[in-house]
């Protein structure tokens, strides 16, 4: 049995799984407002009420998974606010 071919036979199932996850998200997005987008805006609004930051210094990373999606928000907050935050 050609081992190499066995390992490689897996590409169609990989494609199927990727499409299932992706299309589930895209169909969802078509019907409703973008939940992750709303979360992003609201998180940024809350933080900006307490700490000033530049919009360009916000990095948002997203990973839409099958059962779990991850939203990562990185914001560079200028120093000198440690006391304000600790207080």
């Amino acid at each position, binding site marked *: 049995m*050609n081992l190499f071919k066995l390992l490689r036979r897996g*590409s*169609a199932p990989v*494609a199927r799984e990727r499409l299932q996850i*992706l299309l589930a998200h895209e169909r969802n997005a078509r019907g409703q407002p973008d939940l992750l987008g709303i979360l992003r805006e609201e998180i940024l609004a809350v933080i900006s009420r307490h700490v000033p930051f530049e919009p*360009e210094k916000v*990095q948002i990373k997203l*990973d839409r*998974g099958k059962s779990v999606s991850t939203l990562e928000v990185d914001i560079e907050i200028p120093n000198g606010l440690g006391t304000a935050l600790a207080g």
Partner: protein
Amino acid sequence: MAQVLVVTSGKGGVGKTTSTAALGAALARGGDKVVVVDFDVGLRNLDLVLGAERRVVFDLINVIHGVAKLPQALIRDKRLENLFLLPASQTRDKDALTDDGVANVIAELRRKFDWIICDSPAGIERGATLAMRHADAAIIVTNPEVSSVRDSDRIIGLLDSKTAKAERGERVEKHLLITRYHPGRAARGEMLSIDDVLEILSTPLLGIIPESEEVLRASNVGTPVTLNNALSAPARAYFDAARRLKGEEIPMLVPSESRGIFNKLFGRKAA
């Protein structure tokens, strides 16, 4: 000096997106900083072929309309740190692209990257003309098949009239990339030969990519074919094409019917 390339064809389904990803990865592998830009607004594909479909947050339209800054929209490839993707929008359409918006984005990308590869949509309308507008050079992807060849001819005509370079009286460098070449069919006269295509299109040849299951496999798993199986025939042809883009002179290999190295070895072991 940054180079803006457009990968275009006129005809759909000939291998533009596959080639954009393969060439982008090949150039990035070689150490250059590369960004691939998807101009197919509303029907994005480049993210899928690169396996980044789950990570798209902002896209080209968002950047044009000021909703996001360019660095926020760029997605870095997880395998090659020099390769970035600027995805297209999936919900808008080509009318959301503006001339000035695209010009500004390309200008900003020129400052950060060595290669900006614009993946054009099929057709000759707004998305396609905007993708070619700022190109220094064009890769015209053609299948050895009559409608693909005629559409490529049309596109070559447009490259000489609709681009900023043409309007300034300069020439857009043109390269022909023949894809889905099937040596058996060509030998039996069932497929246009390389010479036929070259004679009709009168454009320098960048490479000949053989028809191969590797392309489908790579797209299934979301990896450019040059990364998924770098030793396969199409990958090697793409690597050669990337080197030619950088000015190297490499003899052109016409794919033949004989099987590739790996297949040959395993073929014998199995028997």
